[in-house]
């Protein structure tokens, strides 16, 4: 996908650093409080790709929503480049598990969403073309979402996020619902995009291999309420190979942390 453009937008946005400081969070459910995050603290350096790995329903997506500013944490503080996160901001845009494209908008109009919302579409409409080219959908800009395959819809969703020039891209299991072949292709695409664009990325996933293949750090979370179990540096250069013995080694270690190593 990335053969067309050697750069994304100029000047390439530098990545943001993220500090998660002692964050706990709970939901009210049927009059009871359900704790989902338990004193989570970590720092993410500018330009890193960090994977949050944990069992299904452990609260990792909630953590991502807090970073996005869609909800405030019950306690604790989140800082981006030293600034407290008080609400959503286009520099911290989310790519969700579902493409959540607006069915009444064409591919192009969907990608334009962020610029339109901020009144920048007229001045910077060229960025839409750039984002569409980057994900390889230039020829489908007049299509409606129902005409796209799952992989294409998720690429539109990626273009819609990229058009905002994120400094911290939040990926909420973005490949979770794709077929395994499309998923493998898009893992590689996301990595090369991240390498060229220079943004930081926080990837929520429950796929151990995906985390090890893509991230330079994997933070392993426990069952709900999620607490950090381990913070593992993936000391491998890109491009990586899935059959790399070091990946197999790390996978055994991570599965062990998740209590899933019995069959491995």
């Amino acid at each position: 996908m990335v053969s067309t453009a050697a750069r994304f937008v100029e000047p390439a946005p530098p990545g943001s650093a993220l500090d998660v400081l002692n964050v706990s969070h709970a939901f009210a459910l049927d009059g009871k409080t359900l704790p989902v995050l338990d004193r989570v603290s970590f720092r993410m350096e500018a330009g890193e790709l960090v994977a949050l790995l944990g069992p299904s329903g452990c609260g990792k997506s909630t953590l991502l929503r807090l970073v996005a500013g869609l909800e405030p944490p019950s306690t604790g503080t989140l800082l981006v480049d030293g600034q407290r996160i008080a609400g959503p901001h286009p520099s911290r845009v989310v790519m969700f598990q579902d493409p959540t494209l607006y069915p009444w908008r064409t591919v192009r109009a969907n990608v334009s969403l962020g610029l339109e919302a901020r009144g920048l579409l007229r001045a910077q409409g060229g960025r839409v073309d750039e984002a569409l080219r980057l994900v390889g959908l230039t020829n489908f800009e007049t299509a409606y979402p129902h005409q796209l395959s799952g992989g294409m819809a998720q690429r539109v969703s990626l273009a819609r996020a990229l058009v905002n020039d994120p400094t911290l891209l939040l990926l909420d299991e973005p490949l979770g619902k794709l077929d395994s072949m499309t998923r493998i292709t898009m893992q590689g695409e996301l990595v090369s995009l991240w390498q060229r664009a220079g943004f930081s990325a926080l990837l929520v996933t429950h796929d151990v291999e995906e985390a090890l293949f893509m991230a330079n750090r994997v933070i392993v979370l426990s069952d709900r309420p999620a607490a950090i179990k381990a913070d593992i540096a993936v000391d491998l250069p890109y491009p990586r190979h899935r059959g790399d013995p070091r990946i197999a080694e790390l996978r055994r270690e991570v599965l062990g942390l998740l209590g899933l190593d019995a069959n491995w």
Partner: protein
Amino acid sequence: MFSAKSLRPAEDIGQSVADEPVAAPRAFWFLGGIAAVAWLTDAAVTGWLPDIDDFDRTGLLAWVMAGIGAILAAIAVLGSLVPKNVAERARYSGPWLLLLSGVFLAWELTTAKFTVLPRPFFASPQAMLEVFTDDYPRLGLSVAHSLRLLAGGYVIGAMAGFAAGVAIGWSRAVGYWAHPALRLLGPLPATAWLPLAFFAFPGSYSASTFLVALATGFPVTVLTWSGVAGVNKAYYDVARTMGASQRFLVLKVAIPAAMPSVFVGLFMGLGASFSVLVVAEMMGVKAGLGWYLQWAQGWAAYANMYSALLVMALMCTGLITLLFRARDKLLAWQKGLVQW
């Protein structure tokens, strides 16, 4: 690499309709020929068999029937010379045209020729034709009056209902105050307000406009509200992370997402407005098709009444067709048939 492989091939979409086998036009359209003979028979019976009474338009009716028969005969014989779409439409309508010729023959015989059905309650075809040829100024004026009243009330009701529905669906505070009132007063038939409206408004026209608006407004409000309330919450998250304002969320997310539901409300409102319109015109307004019906019945002019009913049916179905066309155009993204 990206390829079009992951996209459903465009040929898969909407192909079946285009490729449906169409029967090759034959030299002679057999059913059309039969229908032509049937209509010419109708014309002969109408023209040559004596009427039971003096009807002014028997000759014209016979000529109209003969005209239909002649056109059918021409298409049946010279089908290959007629534009293809006209020929196809005629072929499609063939069975109906044949049935109608039978209906007209039976109707003509049982009314104008032998009076099997009691007069004046059963009007003959030529008597109804006479209404259109002789009373068209009054009938046309009635249609204009009805359309004016309906359009005024419907537009006001639809706009007010839409605004109210969006407000209730969006704002918890508005919902708190509006919901009980809507729940109590909404289901009340708009016609129940009739006595109060004619007393409270300065004139019957404004009172009727209000009633039509009321009848339209309730379904539009409820369905707009339900459409806005049912919008996928993730759509808002997406827009919010990209810096959308509240205004953007309402205008560019909530309202477009609610449009399919809004159109159901507009359709239901249109149906309700027809019934209020007719009642209002019968009760107070001295114009319009409802009034014409009442007036015709007062003079025992049954042919006029049937003609007005026919015109009203055409008007209502035409308006609903118009609404559906507008919907198909606006909600093309929903149909799943859009080609690019």
